[in-house]
């Protein structure tokens, strides 16, 4: 029997704040986390605008209450902080009978330490303790260890849609009866590796990003982690956790167009949103808000904008990209923006698409320019698209509405 999937816990760390409440406060105060590079040692230090988590690795360790017995990459530390918050939010420790899984998305994995010590790994005979923390699963395994989880876990890497795909797979595992509850999301730290990679692709903006603006000029990269606790309706009867909202739809499609670029007509974006909508039982006119992928690149915003216009013919709901707040959190973007969408749903707020002033001539609709409060919201959609054309869309619905 297809079970309903409820969201009962949230955990979120980004440049805007170290927990959900701090992130919400920043959003409400229109406080962007985009700024100059502080922590990461790179030649691009004075050139790029990014969104960095304020805490250093040492501070993150302290914040997460970790001992020095293990080595942790920044990716892992961010993941532990957000997963801990989500887990404690849903009070899962008191329910030993339920099968809890961890599904985490990441792409750069432990590259932050690897790029510092690669030569050391290859040549230095005194073992560097970061030598086995490079792969993507290292953060997932350590997040699970830290939470005392011994059941199912896996890691997904579909570039910038990794965390959205983690949420989808978690839901499918529960619907298939493999799990009762899941912690799903993603984590990504900034690295010299992908800062330089995106820079070589010439898609980074030196100024704060301007998604859906005619003058948009690229991405600001960001870092952080975000996790959702999800449980089946049956499990929720046992845990008694407060239901934040319901995950009612999701879709995944592949652009099959180009390794990094989106198709001009947004085939993948359209298919992902369409699948999600069909699954949710909602119609284009019942969706109240779309948190767009909206990276601020020429290519993405045109492609996604056209796909939105095609699916929501004639009546495009409120649309905004919140990347001017958080930066592009790459593998963590899907779950971070799912949480931002859910916070909007909970509080009746349409988040503004900051830095927007010039409409794109190719599009009929305009993104939400300013914050709109007291909106009666029921259904929100969150889009995440990645390299390889791995496109995903999630739909959340307010609980108790039929």
């Amino acid at each position, binding site marked *: 029997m297809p079970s309903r999937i409820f969201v009962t816990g949230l955990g979120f760390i980004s440049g805007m704040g170290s927990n959900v409440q701090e992130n919400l406060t920043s959003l409400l105060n229109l406080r962007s986390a985009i700024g100059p590079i502080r922590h990461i040692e*790179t*030649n*691009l230090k004075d050139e790029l605008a990014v969104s960095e988590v304020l805490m250093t690795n040492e501070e993150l360790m302290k914040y997460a209450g970790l001992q020095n017995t293990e080595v942790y990459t920044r990716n892992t530390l961010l993941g532990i902080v957000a997963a801990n918050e989500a887990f404690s939010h849903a009070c899962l420790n008191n329910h030993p009978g339920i099968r809890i899984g961890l599904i985490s998305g*990441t*792409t750069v994995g432990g*590259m932050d330490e690897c*790029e510092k010590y*690669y*030569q050391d*790994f*290859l040549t230095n005979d005194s*073992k560097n303790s970061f*030598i*086995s923390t490079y*792969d*993507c*699963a290292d953060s*997932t*395994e350590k997040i699970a*260890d830290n939470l005392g989880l*011994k*059941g199912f*876990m*896996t*890691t*997904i*890497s*579909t*570039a910038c849609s990794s965390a959205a*795909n983690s949420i989808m*797979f978690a839901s*499918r*595992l529960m*619907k*298939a009866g*493999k799990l009762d509850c899941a912690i799903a999301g993603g984590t990504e730290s900034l690295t*010299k*590796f992908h800062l*330089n*990679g995106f*820079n*070589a*692709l010439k898609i980074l903006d030196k100024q704060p990003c301007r998604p859906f603006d005619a003058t948009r000029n690229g991405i600001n990269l960001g870092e952080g982690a975000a996790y959702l606790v999800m449980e089946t309706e049956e499990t929720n009867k046992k845990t008694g956790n407060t239901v934040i909202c319901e995950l009612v739809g999701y879709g*995944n*499609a*592949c*652009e*099959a*167009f*180009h*390794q*990094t670029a989106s198709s001009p007509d947004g*085939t*993948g974006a359209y*298919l992902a949103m369409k699948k999600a909508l069909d699954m949710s039982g909602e119609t284009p006119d019942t969706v109240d808000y779309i948190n767009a992928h909206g990276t601020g690149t020429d290519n993405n915003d045109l492609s996604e904008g056209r796909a939105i216009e095609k699916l929501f013919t004639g009546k495009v709901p409120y649309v905004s990209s919140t990347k001017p707040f958080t930066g592009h959190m790459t593998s963590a973007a899907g779950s971070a923006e799912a949480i931002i969408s859910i916070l909007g749903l909970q509080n009746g707020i349409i988040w503004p698409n900051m830095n927007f002033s010039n409409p794109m001539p190719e599009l009929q609709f305009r993104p939400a320019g300013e914050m709109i409060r007291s909106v009666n919201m029921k259904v929100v959609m969150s889009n995440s698209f*990645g*390299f*390889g*054309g*791995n496109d995903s869309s999630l739909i959340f619905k307010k609980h108790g509405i039929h």
Partner: protein
Amino acid sequence: MTAVNVIYINGLGNVSPQKTTDNNHFLDEVNRTQSNRLACIEPNYRDFISPDILRRMGRLIKMGVASSRICLADSGCGMPDAIITGTGLGCLEDTEKFLTTLIRNKEELLTPTSFIQSTHNTVSAQIALLLRCHNYNYTYVHRGWSFESALLDSVIQLRNGRTSTVLTGGMDELTNGSFEITSRLGHWRRKPVDTFELFTSTSRGSIAGEGSAFFLLSTTASHGTYAALTDILTFNRKDSVKSLPSILSGFLNRSGIMPEEIDLAVCGMNGDSTSAKPYKELTDSVKNAGIAAWKHLSGEYMTSSAFGLWMASMIMKHGQVPEAAVVRNCGDRPINTILLYNHYLDLNHSFILIRKP
């Protein structure tokens, strides 16, 4: 929508250190070497990929695309409903290339090609791109559970009744850099070993390997069906109170079978004395079954269970274990039920059950 009970393996494609690209042959000629690392016998990629695309492709992408093409052709499926891959470390060659240039050039004069190809989902994305396949596309990257996660997702997709074919694969490549680093971690034998004496010459470390194996899974059987994929389980033994035999009987119980019904156990033993114990426990708990192994043929890597499942599927179709893979003979016992057991560094354990279709 009706629930699907049986999932069929209708096609195989395997690029490995053995001659495995032609499905009409099954290890009748085996590559036996004296080494601590095995490299793939790569096919002529021009048979599968046009030269202009081939020129830019990283090595793992080529291996992945070629093995997926062999698999699709073998199955007769032109357009799968989903493409799901597992890779422990992804496109290492491109990652190392970008990283090394970044370090050497001090972040100057970088070109994006190797960065573009460095993401773990490049193989599944390139397969989709060449097929123009807009369907579901996922990549799992969890060490010794990467391929298993892909397989589990495939099973869930097929059982939900909306998907009838999935192209599923596991792939990893070995580079000089990754061999060097994992050597430092003590993963490999210090001296070359006769690959056929890997299991008898007990000492620390295994032999490094690589490969890419694809499977076409379907809800309907075909003339070429190899086996029925019955069940899959990934499990962790950290602080586990359950013994391996009890985890096994719980797993088999889900399919309504007893350990005595296992005709053959295909095991991931790799010659490393420090991780041999679980394999011993397993083989002791299926006393009447034959035992086969694959890592002396493929080498050890995070997705080597894909080679294991390829071998198990071929054994099911041929009805016998190739001589090179036999660890314990099962005599004349017909092979109807095969259990695949693997673990990676005693951290990521998995069972896969296949039966005669």
